[in-house]
Structures are given as structure tokens and as C-alpha cells.
């Protein structure tokens, strides 16, 4: 017990030390208005140590300041996938919608529900509940004994949680199936062809819902309900690489 208390205190102390950390050069650059440096350093940090919601949302802020709406929206949306309540990402998206001229589909009730936890957390929770419920049902049969009251309670609790996870899984799936338009002045096309008839204009930073891919295009639905096709390279899925893709860089042969 004493060793456990010591470990806990050490962990708390390390957290406290983390709070008293020094300001990183990237943050200093951001505060000075050198957003390009901030983006570069935060990107390096993400490649070395992996991403977190705070790092992605900070990167999104810097990208937005540089006028790269698409990259900024990708960063913020990905930050929200990691932490649905990240205040920096939420503020950034609100600002982009209100003053930045971008559009984002209104979340459905399932997406609002799903944003309570991350998609992976919903899946882990649902899987755990499934296995607990399954074992609670099967084990007494294998042992040829009547299920105890504790078993019944656990089974009901697990099944209830599993049912509650279903809309979360559904909403999380549709949340991560969205994409951000990365190109400026893109036309939504009627058909997935090279010379498809333009239907509607979408712009960089707009968030769209994606559907099936076909012929190098993806069927998308815009925030105002218009449906059409966009080229695969014109959008970037929110669930994908940790940092926004560099569309100017040609793919390796």
C-alpha cells in the first residue's frame, strides 16, 4: 500500500512538473507571429513524438494564420477525433464557420452523441461489453451451472452499455467518414468523370461527407445537402495520416 502511494505521488509530481514546463520555441514563434516557423517545429515534434489533440489544434491555428484553410480544418477535425472537447479546435472551427467562409455539415444526433467519446474509445467499450456479456452467457452453460445473481447483473449492465455504444459507434463512423476540401475553388461534379458537369462550388476548408469512391472520384455531400463528385486528390479524409497531407508533393512512383 505504501509503495502504491509513493508511485501515485511520483506520478502526480511528474504531472505537476509537466504543468510548469517551459514554453517551447514553436509557441514563442507563434506568439511572435512567425507562424511558418511554428508550423515547422510543431510538425517536426509530431513526426518525432506522435500527435496529441493539443498539438494538432495548435498546428491548426498556425495553419489558419498562414491562410491555409484546408490544412487548418484537417488539423482541427483530427484534434477533435482525439479529444472531442478540445477547446482550441472547437474555437478554431467556430471561427472558421463564422468568419472564415467555410462550411461544415451540421452534426446529426448520432454524431453529437458520439462526440462524447473518441471513436476508438467507443469501439473498445463496445468490444469489452460484448465480451463480458458473451462470457456471462456462455460460461455458466459450459460449467453446467445456473448463472448467479452477480452474473445476471453483469450481463444486463454489459448489454445495456453495448446498446448505448451502438449510436456512438455509428456517429463516430460518420464523423470520421468526412473529409476536408483541400483545393481552392473546386466544383462539385454531376458525374465522376474528368469533364463532369459542374454543379456547385466548394472551397478550401469546407467539410463534406464522403460516400463511395469511383473512377478516381469520391461521392460527397456538402453542408447544404448538395451531392456530387470530387476528385480524390481534392479532398483529404479526416481520419488518415496524423498531419495534413502535402498535396504539392508528388506521390512516389
Amino acid at each position, binding site marked *: 500500500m505504501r509503495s502504491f502511494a509513493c508511485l501515485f505521488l511520483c506520478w502526480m509530481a511528474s504531472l505537476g512538473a*509537466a504543468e510548469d*514546463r517551459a514554453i*517551447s520555441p*514553436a*509557441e514563442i514563434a*507563434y506568439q511572435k507571429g512567425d507562424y511558418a516557423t511554428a508550423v515547422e517545429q*510543431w510538425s517536426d*515534434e509530431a513526426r518525432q*513524438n*506522435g*500527435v*496529441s*489533440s*493539443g*498539438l494538432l*489544434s*495548435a*498546428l491548426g*491555428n*498556425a495553419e*489558419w*494564420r498562414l491562410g491555409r484553410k484546408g490544412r487548418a480544418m484537417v488539423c482541427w477535425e483530427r484534434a477533435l477525433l*482525439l*479529444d472531442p472537447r478540445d*477547446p*482550441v479546435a*472547437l*474555437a*478554431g472551427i*467556430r*471561427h472558421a464557420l*463564422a*468568419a*472564415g*467562409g467555410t462550411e461544415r455539415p451540421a452534426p446529426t444526433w448520432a454524431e453529437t452523441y458520439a462526440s462524447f467519446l473518441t*471513436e*476508438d474509445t467507443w*469501439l*473498445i467499450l463496445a*468490444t469489452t461489453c460484448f*465480451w463480458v456479456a*458473451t462470457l456471462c452467457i*456462455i460460461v455458466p*452453460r*459450459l460449467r*453446467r451451472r445456473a448463472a448467479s445473481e452477480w452474473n445476471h447483473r453483469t450481463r444486463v449492465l454489459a448489454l445495456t452499455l453495448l446498446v448505448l455504444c451502438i449510436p456512438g459507434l455509428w456517429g463516430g*463512423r460518420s464523423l*470520421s467518414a468526412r473529409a476536408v476540401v483541400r483545393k481552392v475553388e473546386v466544383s462539385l461534379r*454531376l458525374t465522376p468523370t474528368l469533364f463532369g*458537369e*459542374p*454543379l*456547385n*462550388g466548394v472551397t478550401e476548408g469546407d467539410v463534406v461527407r464522403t460516400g463511395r469512391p469511383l473512377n478516381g472520384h469520391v461521392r460527397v455531400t456538402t453542408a*447544404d*445537402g448538395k451531392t456530387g463528385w470530387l476528385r480524390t486528390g481534392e479532398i483529404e479524409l479526416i*481520419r*488518415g*495520416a*496524423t498531419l495534413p497531407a502535402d498535396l504539392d508533393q508528388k506521390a512516389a512512383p
Partner: protein
Amino acid sequence: MRRFLASTVLLLLGLLARAEDRVSWEITPRVTAPGQPFRLQIMVESDVLLGGAQQVDREIRPPRGMALRLSGQLVRPDSNEATLNFSGVAPDQEGEYVIPAFTLRFARKLIPVTPIKLIVSNSVAYQRTAQARAELVLPERTFYVGELIRGAIHLRGGDDESVVASFGLESIAEGFTLAVTADRQPLPAKLGQGMRTSFELTPIREGTSELSLRGTMLIQNTDTPAFGNGNRDRPFTFRRKLVVEHVPERGRPADWTGAIGAFSAEAVQVSKDRPEVGEPIRLRAILTGTGNLDRLIPPEIPGNESWDVLPATERRRQAEEQRFFVYTLVPRLPGKLLTPALRFSTFDPLTKQFSRIEFKPIEVTVTGNAPAQVDLVTADPAAPVGAKPQVAAGLAAPAPQRGTPIFRGVPTLSLASSGAFWSGNGLLLAGLLVLTGGVLYLGYLAAHPEIRRRRRARSIIRSALLEAASARRRGDRHAFAQSAVRALQVGAAALLDAEEAAMTQGDLERVLPGVPRPLLDELFARAYGNRFAEGAGEAGLPREDETLELLRRLQSLL
């Protein structure tokens, strides 16, 4: 001279004495029941020629709840007497009612009238339904500024009287506007004979106000001959205190523009459902319900990249309790487009709740080709020339260290996209299914032991057949008989659910009906005879083929 003065004073005193006017009144009946009609007659005798009284209705002020109207006056031009007749209706509450003193204005003289008292008592027998009467129909609740309140005055005939006309409706409604919408309409059949005057009332300010309505109805006795002139008038008056409030600000939606009532979105229609690009079509939304329909401000529909929206006016006549909102839509792009949604909020005075009315969009297929470029106006036209774009100031301060270390190094793929996750779960599930199947199978075998027993017997018989064939090739009759007898015993025991060693020739005959007993005896003697005597069982003819056939037959039974 002194006598002359005295006589003059006496004469003047006499003249003064004659100058006192005499006023008397009479109410018939003296005591009335609540709501009962009565007649008031005022008789005036003066020392001058009176002529006709003027503006009597303005001078006389009946008490609250009492209707009183001058119905006529009898004046002779050469007489100093006048008789004024009033018709009235007693108040609905019991009590003593006093008509305050007032002044009769004659051409040459003003004559004061003392207060007049009327007693209203419930003890008076009076059949109200026999008389013509007036009823005010107005909801009793809190009203709201801007609301349209529909009310009516029902002039209902009775058993003895019928209403033939009405006139002189006057209203005193401070804080309200009143408009008569229908006058002298026949009453619905269920209310009997009579007339109906409908009106609309709109509160224009908050507070408690009094609505006063009065008028006169012309009634006729039902037993009056058809060409007789038995008409007479009867006044009516209503005073109602109304409480008016503003529509509550709490919970008031931003798109509420003054709609008060109970409405419903009836339908949305378009004049053409397959227009071309640029072809104007008319969108008509039909709203029904009760409330201030006429005062609703048509909701604004902003234009978008699909539609240009222009306001329009409806030429069709609108029915009561129905309102059209009409717009002209010009499609800008081809394809299947949805008309703009039309929505606004209303306030229901009965439930005191706000609700939202929404006309759902309908699909319109727009044909034709899109213009080369659609210019979307996103700049503020009111902004000054050269103004700098608004600086993005809504970003929060970044906190890159935010988040616990467990979120570091998030994989590029989600768990749902991970093959290892699903394959691991699949393997676990498959293992669980195999384990469950195995346990169930073992349980089944435990519940049916004959399966294992017969399986074992089949195995033993198969090996016995092989051993017997081997013994036969060697010429070892004893070994042949031993393996055959053991196989027969095992097979019979499996079929009879008995011990193997206890199986005798009789048991084998039960299992294999028709088997030759000598063959069995010979086999058993050859197999077990040595136990009892050396060389026993060696005699007899070799019948190996028959024995093997017997074993195969037993095998087929298992």
C-alpha cells in the same frame, strides 16, 4: 302703495310657487329578476311649455350591468307636460341598483331628476328563455398584444319573443381596436331563432382594460299577427374586464415576428415542377389556423446559389382562417433542387408556448444548362471602399502540450480500420465457439453412453474380423473361435446394454434371431473349452465362413 307692494309680493310668491317642477317616475315591474326586461317611465310637469327632451341618453347613466335606452317620449306642443319612456334590462346580479340623478334638457328648461332605484331579486319568478336576450361570446383568458380575438354577440329569441332586427352597436374599448366582421347574421340552428354580430378585437396595449359593448335589438311577440306592429326595442349592454399582456420574452425565438394563434402548415405548391434554369416559378405556402393570420409578416427567404427569391403577391382571394405566402423562385442551376425551407415561430395563447411552423421543401427538377459562372456575392456591399478584411480574432490560444501522454503516438488508422483488432476478436470468437461446441458434444455423449459403447463394439468386431481371418490363414481354430466369440459377446452386450462376459448363446440368439445354435455351441466350446478340459472343443466341423458372416451381420446391427 303699501297694499300694492304687498299684493305684488304675494303675486310673485305665487308665481314662484307655480315655478316648482314636478317629476315622477315609475318602473314596471318594480322588482325584477336578474336579466329581466323592464320599462321606466318618467313624467315631467312644468310651468312652461317643455317641448322635446334632448340628448337624454347622454345624461342618464345607468349602473353597471343595466341596459337602459330611451325608447320614446310623449310631448304635446301646447302642453307643459312630457312623458319619457325607457326600455331596460336588469343586471344579472341581485341587489339594489340606483340610476344616479340626472338632468333632462328641454328646449326651455333644465329639469333635474332624482335618483331612481331598481330592485333586482332572485325571488321574482321569471322564465329567462321566454324573452329575447343578448349574450356575449368572448373567451375568458389572458390576451396578448397584437392578438386577433374573435368574438360575437348572440341576440337570441325566446319562447315568447323573437328578434327581428338590431341596430346601434356601440363599443367603448380602451386599449383595443374593434372591427365588426359580420352583422345581423342568422344564428346557427342549434341556438334557436336570433341574430349574430361577429367582431374582431385586437389588444394594442398591456394592462387591464374594460370592453363595453351596447346596442339595441328589435323584438316582436311571437303571438303578434303577421301584419301587426308589435315591435319594440330592447337594449343590451356588456362590460368585460380584459387582461392583456405582452407575449413573453422568455423563450421567444428570434424568428418570431408576431404570429399569435394556432397555425399549421397546410401545403407547399409550386406553379411548375420542371422549370428551366432562369424560368421563374411561383412558390405558394398555405398556412391555416386561427389567429392573426392577416397580420403575419411573410417570412423572408434568402436567395442562395440554387435559387433567386423574389417576393410576390397573391391575387387569389384568401379564405377565412387561411393565409398564403407567395414567392417567386428563379432556379440558377440544373438538377433536382429542393425549394427553400420556409419556417417561422408562432405563439399559442392557449398553451402559452412558442412553436415552430415549417413548410418542408419540395423537390423540383430543373432542366437546362447552368450559366458559365455563378457569381456568389459574399462581400458586404455596405462596407467602405478599401476596407481591410476582418482579422480572424476568434481563435483560442494554442496549448500544444494539452492532452495526456496516453494520447501520444496515435496510430494513423483507427481501431475500427485495424485488421489485427478484428482478426484478434475473430480468433477469440472462433475459439470460444469451438470450445462451446466441444463441451456440448461431450455433454451429448455423456447423456447417451450407448453411442460410445456401440462405437467400441464396432471397433472390436472390426479387429476381431481381422484376427479371425489371420487365425484362419494360420489354421489356428482356437484363436479363430476366441476372437469370434469375444466379438459376438461385445456386440451383443452393446445392443443389450449388458456386461460382455455375461453374454451367452441365448443372448446371442436374442440379438441375432435365426442364428444356428449348434454353431454357437461349437464356437463357445472351442473358445472356452480349454478352461474346463484339455482338448475339449477340438471336435466338430470347421464353419469359419458362417462365423464370419455372423460377425458381419452383428456389425451391421451396431
